């Protein structure tokens, strides 16, 4: 560990780098404790007297005290949209690792983080759509569907994910996009059934809604709760519950219409 290369930085600069790292991680769907830990480590490496961070899933509070008697700073950052992007989390993790090993000056770290923030999605939308369709088909199979169920769920899952992504970008209300997507999935599954294909409707629907299911949210919520981050745990839990409810509601409308 060569700490010599780490120069002392001003509190404002430290603040900026920490917040940028935290912002990227929170937007990419990292767990609360990981974000707080990363910000604290970065701040401590650039030698501050005290650092306190508080992260919920919609905002970051950070307070940094300097060693040199400079005035301490507290800032708040609000996050509006979140999309799971593990590549960015891994990248920020790598930068943070380099910082704590003393391999990056604060300016270098800042530039590196800005580049991560600007980076486009790793996989183009077409590939994501294909992945969602393939995932739907695979889930139908491993949840006990027959081979005849594979293609209908690939189509239903693909269309559902496509609608979800498009509407999610247009509308502020995520709930609506989810209801619409799961409604369409149900409709397509029943359409295949009425066309005379002997598919297992339940299996097709379950497989096809999997790309929308808030699995990450649920597990992150419980993890946050167990780590003692009660507020963000409950908030993520509420988000997961609403997503599950929206998916259920979409399917429910179809079932109610056909009954």
């Amino acid at each position, binding site marked *: 560990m060569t700490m010599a290369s780490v120069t002392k930085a001003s509190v404002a600069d430290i603040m900026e780098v920490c917040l940028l790292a935290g912002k990227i991680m929170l937007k990419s769907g990292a767990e609360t404790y990981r974000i707080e830990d990363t910000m604290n480590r970065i701040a401590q490496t650039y030698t501050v007297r005290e650092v306190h961070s508080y992260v919920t899933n919609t905002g970051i509070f950070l307070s940094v005290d300097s060693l040199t008697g400079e005035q301490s700073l507290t800032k708040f950052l609000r996050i509006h949209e979140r999309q799971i992007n593990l590549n960015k*989390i891994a990248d920020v993790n790598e930068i943070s690792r380099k910082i704590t090993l003393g391999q990056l000056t604060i300016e270098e770290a800042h530039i590196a983080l800005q580049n991560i923030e600007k980076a486009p999605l790793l996989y183009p939308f077409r590939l994501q759509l294909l992945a969602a369709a393939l*995932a739907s088909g695979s889930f139908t199979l491993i949840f006990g569907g027959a081979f005849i169920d594979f293609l209908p769920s690939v189509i239903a899952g693909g269309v559902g994910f496509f609608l979800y992504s498009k509407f999610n970008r247009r509308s502020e209300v995520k709930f609506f996009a989810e209801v619409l997507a799961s409604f369409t999935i149900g409709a397509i599954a029943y359409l295949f059934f009425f066309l005379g294909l002997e598919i297992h409707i339940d299996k097709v629907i379950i497989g096809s809604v*999997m790309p929308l299911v808030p699995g990450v949210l649920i597990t992150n919520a419980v993890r946050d709760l167990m780590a003692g981050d009660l507020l963000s745990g409950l908030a993520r839990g509420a988000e997961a519950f609403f997503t599950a409810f929206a998916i259920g509601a979409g399917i429910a409308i179809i079932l109610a219409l056909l009954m």
Partner: protein
Amino acid sequence: MSWLIALCGSFLATMSFGILFNVPRKSLIMGGLAGAFGWMIYVLLARELGVNIVAATLAGAFGVATASQILARFLKMPVTVFSIAGIIPLVPGGMAYDTMRHFIENEYTEGIRLGTITLLLAGSIAFGLIFSGVLTDTFSRRNKPIAKSSSSK
């Protein structure tokens, strides 16, 4: 045959989810393998040996998490890169759907029964992940966290 379907299906599903979650390219295949590993543990326990599904899910999640920890060490990436997509096959999406459907059909008792199992399954996934994390942290000395509390003095 059903084993082959379970193996290939869970591998493909996990890898596809890796793409949806934008995991780094070099961890895509390994993450898929971790997911398939966890799902095979679940299938072996729940379908072949008749173990309770909550316990089987716990074991599966523990398997995914442990595999992810090992992969994370070797490839120097955060554990979540592998584990988040890997646990997806175990997530009780189908059970949540069944819960909703029973509520729609006015079968509230059955809905609540299934809803409770769904919650237990979600909890056991999270517990499997945490349990594995705690074990690895306890038994590996290399990765000591830098001062957990905020002040340095």
